[in-house]
């Protein structure tokens, strides 16, 4: 739990130092810095988690039998069926060639990245410190780069599928002629609406996940701070930390689910013409 924060107080850290330290990325400049910076912690953690989760599923899928499934296979099929059902309800095309596998990837990967929040912040930080990394943020989805990367990738896919389904002309026609109709004097309004939609989609998609995970992390840090203020604070922070962790199980799963659902909805909408 969070009692180990008491140790942190002995190092005479100020609260702002403590929080700032935990929210600092392991940034690695590529050349000029600025945009050309790489968050090594975010990238390594997310890639490791992605390989781990999809590798596990792949390992089970490779040995999948059509006969009586093992418990392991049954569990994977449970997740598979859950994702497939959601996609089936939203998207009515050939979902198996791309959209459903994408939804599975998004769900499992985002879930795994969110689930890093369950690890006690300070124990994980100490562990990474012992490996020689002074700063290491554990939750890749509390990095706006991750959520924005996913949302932008989905955004590009959305435009790609939109053009693929309607043709380039059809897509441009839709930009100007929906939702208010094809009369020339409503073109500007239509275009403005569509632009707002295209801008707001990736923003809301990415910021929702980022905000939830970032806030969750900050609350763990605040509880850690409280735990450093003495016995009462330690007990209170331990109890509240446990409560927040349990509640966080819901948030982690829910945000992964929402992110997946929005991905599917956006991609399905791209296939529909107005």
């Amino acid at each position, binding site marked *: 739990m969070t009692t180990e924060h008491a140790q942190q107080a002995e190092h005479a850290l100020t609260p702002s130092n403590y929080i700032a330290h935990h929210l600092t990325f392991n940034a690695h400049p590529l050349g000029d810095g600025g945009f050309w910076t790489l968050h090594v912690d975010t990238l390594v953690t997310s890639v490791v988690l992605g390989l781990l989760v999809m590798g596990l599923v*792949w390992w089970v899928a490779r040995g999948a039998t*059509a006969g009586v499934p093992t418990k392991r296979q049954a569990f994977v099929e449970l997740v*598979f069926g859950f994702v497939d059902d959601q996609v089936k309800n939203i998207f009515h095309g050939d979902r198996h060639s*791309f959209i459903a*596998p994408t939804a599975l990837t998004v769900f499992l990967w985002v879930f795994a990245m969110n689930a890093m929040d369950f690890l006690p912040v300070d124990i994980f930080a100490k562990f990474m410190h012992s490996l020689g990394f002074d700063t290491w943020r554990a939750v890749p989805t509390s990095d706006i780069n991750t959520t*924005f*990367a*996913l949302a932008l990738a989905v955004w590009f896919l959305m435009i790609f599928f939109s053009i693929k389904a309607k043709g380039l002309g059809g897509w441009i026609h839709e930009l100007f002629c929906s939702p208010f109709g094809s009369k020339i004097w409503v073109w500007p309004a239509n275009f403005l609406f569509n632009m707002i939609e295209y801008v707001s989609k990736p923003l809301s998609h990415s910021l929702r996940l980022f905000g939830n995970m970032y806030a969750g992390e900050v609350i763990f840090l605040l509880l850690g701070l409280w735990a450093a203020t003495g016995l009462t604070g330690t007990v209170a922070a331990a109890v509240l930390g446990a409560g927040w962790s349990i509640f966080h199980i819901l948030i982690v799963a829910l945000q992964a689910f929402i992110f997946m659902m929005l991905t599917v909805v956006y991609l399905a909408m791209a296939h529909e013409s107005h």
Partner: protein
Amino acid sequence: MNINFTLVAQAIAFAVLIWFTVKFVWPPLLKAIETRQKEIADGLAAAQEGRSALEVAAKKSEATLNEAKQKATEIIGQAEKRATQIVEEAKTNAKVEGDRIIAGAKAEIDQEVNRAKEGLRAQVSSLAVAGAEKILRKEIDAKAHSDMLSKLAAEL
């Protein structure tokens, strides 16, 4: 907020993961599940078929059983009838045979009686000849009177 190159790296990682799932994870799972679904559906259909087949077979066996029972009753009836017939026939035959035997016996008896009569006749005639011989002695020529005597014997 610090947007930086991490975004590009993450997007690439995302693309690779999607490619991996599309290519290697989704198809085998889908295949396994769809095959199992088909197998279960086939199994259920086969069970349904088997149940109706069983019903048909039960009906058929019942019909066969009834038919067999009916046939058996018929055969028993026929056998009884035949038995009666045989008994009747035997009775008739026995009666005929009995009558025949009786008639034969009667004929034989008549024959015996006739033969006895013949014998007696012959003996009577010779006795009569011997008696007459003793009575008449020399007067009577056996040769001259034998015709008369045999005529007498025939009249007996």
